[in-house]
C-alpha cells in the first residue's frame, strides 16, 4: 500500500530505471497514479479529470524530460498546480469601511458552524475587534444554547433574542431573518465592529431553507458570507458547494475538522468548482483551534507529503524557549550531547503530542510507515525509564557505564541488558552525528555539507530502523532527529545568515522534497 504520492510515483518509476527518458506510456501510468491519489483524497471526479489533463500536458513538456529526477519533478508540478487551484495568497477578511463588518456563516448540518462562530469571534477578539454573535439558527435543537456556551468560552457577547428550539419535537418558531437584522442593528447601537451571524444548517437540496438563507443574506447584506464545509466530505462536496454558491453566493470557505486525518480533497474541489478562496481552517474542539488557511500546506496534505511547517509551528508553540536556547548554544559550542539533554529533548517533544503523529508529519515518513504503524508511543516511556535508571554522573558521562552498571540500569528499568546496550549504541551514534553537524557548521565548511549531510544521516537512520527491528532503539532516534531539525532551525534563528552563503552552491531544496515555505526556517534568503 503506497500512501503518499511521491511513494507511488517512485514505485511507478522503479521499472524505468536505466531508461534515458520518460516515454508517453510512462507518463500515462504516472498520471493514473496521480489520479488515484487525488481520488483517494476525496477530490471531486470532474476536478481530478481536469487536473490530470493539466499535469499530463506539463509532464510531457520539456520540464520533466530534462529533469534528473522525473519523479520529484512531477511531484513538484502537481504540487504547484494544486497550489494554483487553491489560490496562492492567503485571503483576509474584508472589513467594512463604515459601520460593523457583517459575517454570515452557512453550511450543511453538522459541518461545525456554531463551533466555528465561537472560534472566529475569539480570533477576531484577539485581534482587537469587538465581535457580536447573533443566534439565527432557530432550527436545530439547542443551537442557541450552544452558541451561548461558545460565546461565553470566547468571552464574546451573544445576541439571542429568541430561545430557539430545545428538542427535536418543537416546531421552529420565530423569524431568523428578523433576528439577524435585529442583531445587526444591535451591533450598530452598541458599537460592535464585527457581527457574526450563525444560521441553521441545511441540505443543499432543501430549497426552503436555502431561500431562508438567501433572505437573511439579502436582509443584512453581509461583507463576507463564509461557507463552512467538513474536511471529511467526499464527492458530494461539489454538489453542496454549487448549491450553496447558487443559494447564498458565499465569498469565502472555511474548512472544518481539519484536525482529523482526512486529506481534505474537498478543499480543492470547492476552490476549483466555485473559484472562491479558502480563508480559514478549524482544527480542534477548543475556541483557539482556528487558523488562517495556507494553500501550500493543504497541497502537501492532499498529496500526503508530510507537513513540516505544521510540525515546526507545533514545536514553536510548545517548545520551551530557554531550553531550546540552551540546546542551541550547546550545539554551537560543540559540547557533548548527554543523556540529560536527551531526556530534556524527549520531554519537550512529548509535549507536542503523539510521537507517531509527529513522525508522520516528517517528509519521507511514508517510507517507514510500516514501521511507524507498529510503533507504540509507550516505547518512549521505556527509553525514558532506562535513562532515568542512570545516575546523574552516568548521564553526563556515558562512557563510564560498564557491564555492571548496565546490569543495574537494566534491572532498574525492567528491560534486558541488550536493550540498554542498544540504546547506548544509538546514543553514541547520535552523539557523533551531532558533533559532525556542529563541526560542519562552525567551520563553515565548503561544499554545503551540513544540510544534505543531515538529510543523509536521517535517511540512514531510517534504514537502520527498517532493518533493525528493535523498537526501543527506534524510539530513541526520532527524538534526536526531530531535535536536530529543531537545533538547526534554532541555530538559524541565532546566527542569521550562516547557512545562507553556502546553501546557494550545493544545497538544493528540491532534493529534500520539502514543502514550499520551509526555506524561511532554514535560511533567510534561499
Amino acid at each position, binding site marked *: 500500500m503506497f500512501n503518499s504520492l511521491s511513494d507511488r510515483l517512485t514505485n511507478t518509476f522503479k521499472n524505468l530505471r536505466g531508461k534515458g527518458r520518460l516515454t508517453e506510456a510512462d507518463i500515462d501510468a504516472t498520471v493514473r497514479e496521480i489520479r*488515484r491519489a487525488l*481520488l*483517494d*483524497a*476525496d477530490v*471531486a*471526479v470532474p476536478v481530478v*479529470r481536469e487536473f490530470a489533463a493539466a499535469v499530463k500536458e506539463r509532464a510531457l513538456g520539456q520540464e520533466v524530460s530534462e529533469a534528473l529526477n522525473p519523479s520529484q519533478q512531477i511531484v513538484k508540478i502537481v504540487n504547484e498546480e494544486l497550489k494554483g487551484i487553491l489560490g496562492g495568497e492567503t485571503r483576509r477578511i474584508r472589513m467594512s469601511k463604515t459601520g460593523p463588518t457583517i459575517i454570515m456563516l452557512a453550511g*450543511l*448540518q*453538522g*459541518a*461545525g458552524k456554531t463551533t466555528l462562530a465561537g472560534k472566529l469571534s475569539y480570533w477576531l477578539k484577539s485581534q482587537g475587534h469587538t465581535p457580536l454573535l447573533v443566534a439565527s439558527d432557530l432550527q436545530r*435543537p*439547542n443551537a442557541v*444554547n*450552544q452558541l451561548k*456556551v461558545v460565546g461565553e468560552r470566547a468571552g464574546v457577547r451573544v445576541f*439571542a*433574542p*429568541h*430561545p*430557539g*428550539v*430545545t*428538542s*427535536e*419535537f*418543537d416546531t421552529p*418558531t*420565530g*423569524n431568523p*431573518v*428578523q433576528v439577524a437584522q*435585529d442583531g445587526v442593528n444591535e451591533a450598530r447601537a452598541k458599537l460592535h465592529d464585527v457581527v457574526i451571524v450563525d444560521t441553521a444548517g441545511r*441540505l*443543499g*437540496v432543501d430549497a426552503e431553507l436555502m431561500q431562508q438563507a438567501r433572505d437573511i443574506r439579502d436582509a443584512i447584506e453581509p461583507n463576507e458570507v463564509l461557507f463552512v464545509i*467538513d*474536511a*471529511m*466530505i*467526499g*464527492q*458530494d*462536496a461539489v*454538489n*453542496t458547494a454549487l448549491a450553496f454558491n447558487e443559494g447564498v453566493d458565499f465569498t469565502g470557505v472555511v474548512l472544518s*475538522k481539519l*484536525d*482529523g*486525518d*482526512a*486529506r481534505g*480533497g*474537498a478543499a480543492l474541489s470547492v476552490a476549483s468548482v466555485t473559484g472562491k478562496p479558502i480563508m480559514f481552517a478549524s482544527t480542534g*474542539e477548543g475556541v483557539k483551534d482556528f487558523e488562517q488557511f495556507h494553500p501550500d500546506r493543504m497541497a502537501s496534505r492532499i498529496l500526503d507529503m508530510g507537513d513540516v511547517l505544521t510540525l515546526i509551528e507545533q514545536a514553536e508553540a510548545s517548545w520551551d524557549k530557554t531550553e531550546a536556547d540552551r540546546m542551541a548554544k550547546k550545539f554551537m559550542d560543540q559540547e557533548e550531547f548527554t543523556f540529560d539533554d536527551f531526556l530534556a529533548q524527549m520531554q519537550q517533544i512529548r509535549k507536542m503530542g*503523539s510521537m507517531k*503523529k509527529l513522525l508522520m508529519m516528517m517528509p519521507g515518513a511514508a517510507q517507514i510507515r510500516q514501521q511507524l504503524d507498529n510503533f507504540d*508511543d509507550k516505547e518512549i516511556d521505556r527509553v525514558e525509564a532506562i535513562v532515568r535508571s542512570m545516575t546523574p554522573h552516568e548521564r553526563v558521562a556515558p562512557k563510564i557505564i560498564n557491564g555492571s552498571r548496565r546490569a543495574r540500569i537494566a534491572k532498574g528499568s525492567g528491560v534486558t541488558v541488550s536493550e540498554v546496550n542498544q540504546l547506548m549504541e544509538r546514543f553514541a551514534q547520535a552523539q557523533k552525528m551531532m558533533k559532525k553537524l556542529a563541526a560542519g557548521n562552525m567551520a563553515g565548511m565548503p561544499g554545503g555539507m551540513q544540510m544534505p549531510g543531515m538529510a543523509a544521516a536521517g535517511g540512514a537512520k531510517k534504514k537502520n530502523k527498517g532493518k533493525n527491528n528493535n523498537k526501543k532503539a527506534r524510539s530513541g532516534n526520532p527524538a534526536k532527529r526531530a531535535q536536530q531539525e529543531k537545533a538547526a532551525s534554532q541555530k538559524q534563528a541565532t546566527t542569521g545568515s550562516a547557512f545562507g552563503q553556502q546553501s546557494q552552491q550545493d544545497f538544493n531544496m528540491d532534493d529534500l522534497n520539502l514543502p514550499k515555505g520551509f526555506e524561511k526556517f532554514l535560511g533567510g534568503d534561499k
Partner: protein
Amino acid sequence: MNDTLTLILYIVLGVLILGGVLAVLLRGPKAPKDGYPSTRDADDVRSGEDEAVTTVERPPSAAGRLVRLRERLSRSNNLLGKGLLALLSRDKLDQDVWDEVEETLLMADLGSGPSERLVEALQRRVRVEGTENPAHVKQMLHEELLAIVGPDTDRSLHLEGENGNPGVVLVVGVNGVGKTTTVGKLARVMVAEDKKLLLGAADTFRAAAADQLQTWGDRVGVQTVRSEKDGADPASVAFEAIKEGKAQAVDTVMIDTAGRLQNKAGLMDQLGKIKRVVEKEAPVTEVLLVIDATTGQNGMIQAKVFSEVVNITGIVLTKLDGSAKGGIVVAIQEELGVPVKLVGLGEGPDDLAPFDAKGFVDAILD
C-alpha cells in the same frame, strides 16, 4: 414635455409613498429587547402539545419504512443510475465508456479501489459472455454491485443479551454525524416492537447532549441514565446505565457516546475504556458506527480505527436524504466486512430504516 416630466415626478412620488407605507405594513414582528420568554408565540396553536408531553407516543413499526427508503434513494440516486444507463446503452463499449462508468461510480464515493474492481469484473464478464447488449450489461452491473454490497450478510441487530443480561448497544462515531439522533430514532423503533429499554447518555462533553437524548427518551417513555454534571467520566455513566438496566430487567440498554475524531488517541482510549468498563457488567452485543452519507474516503479510516478500538459490528448511514450517496459503505463492507444495518433518511423522528442491499442497489440503478 413639461407634462410628461410632472407625470414622471408624480409616479416616482407615488411609488415612494406606496413603498414607504408598504414597508411599514410589511415589517415583521420585531424581537423584544430581552428576548422571547418561550419558544412558542402567544398565538401559537397548542393543540395536543401538552398531551404529547405526558402521554407516550407509539411510533409506527419499521415495516413500511423500506418503501420510503426506496423512494428516497431513488430520488437521491437517480442521477447516478441514469448516467450509468446512458453510458452502457451506447452501441460500442470502448475504453472511454468504461472510464466514464468508473468515474460515475467514483462520484458516488465508492472509492478508487472498489470502482476499479467493479469495472474490471464487468469488463471481464462482457468479454467472456461476448455481449454488448445494454440490458444484459445493466443486469450484470446490477449483479456485480449487489455482490459487493453483499445481499446475504446478516444485518439483524443483536439487541438481546444472554444469561439474564440486557443487550448492550454502543453508538460511536466522529463529530456531527448524528449519533444522538440515531439513538433516539432507534429507541422509537424498539418501543414500537414492545421492547423494554433504557438509554445511557455517555456524551458528557457536548453541551446539552444529554438533554437532547432525554427528550428523545421521554417522548416514548424510556428512562435516560445521565450524570448530574457535564464532563463526568463517560465510562462511569455507561456503567451506571447497565447496572440500572439490569436492576430494571430491561431488554436493551443503548449508550450514546460523544463524537470523537478517530485520530485523537486520548479520546479513542476513552472509548475503549467505556467498552471495557461496560463489559464488566454485561457483554456489549452491538457496536454501531454512525457515518454521515457525505463522508468520503475518510469513512474507511474511521471504520478501521473504530473497529480496532471497539470492534464495530454494524454501520448506520445517516443523512442519506441529501444529494450524497454514501458509497463509502460499499468500500467499508468490502474491506472490513462490517455490514450497514440501518440508514437514516431525514429529520423526522421515524426516518430510520433497516438497510436492504437489494433495495439499495435497485434504487441506484433504476
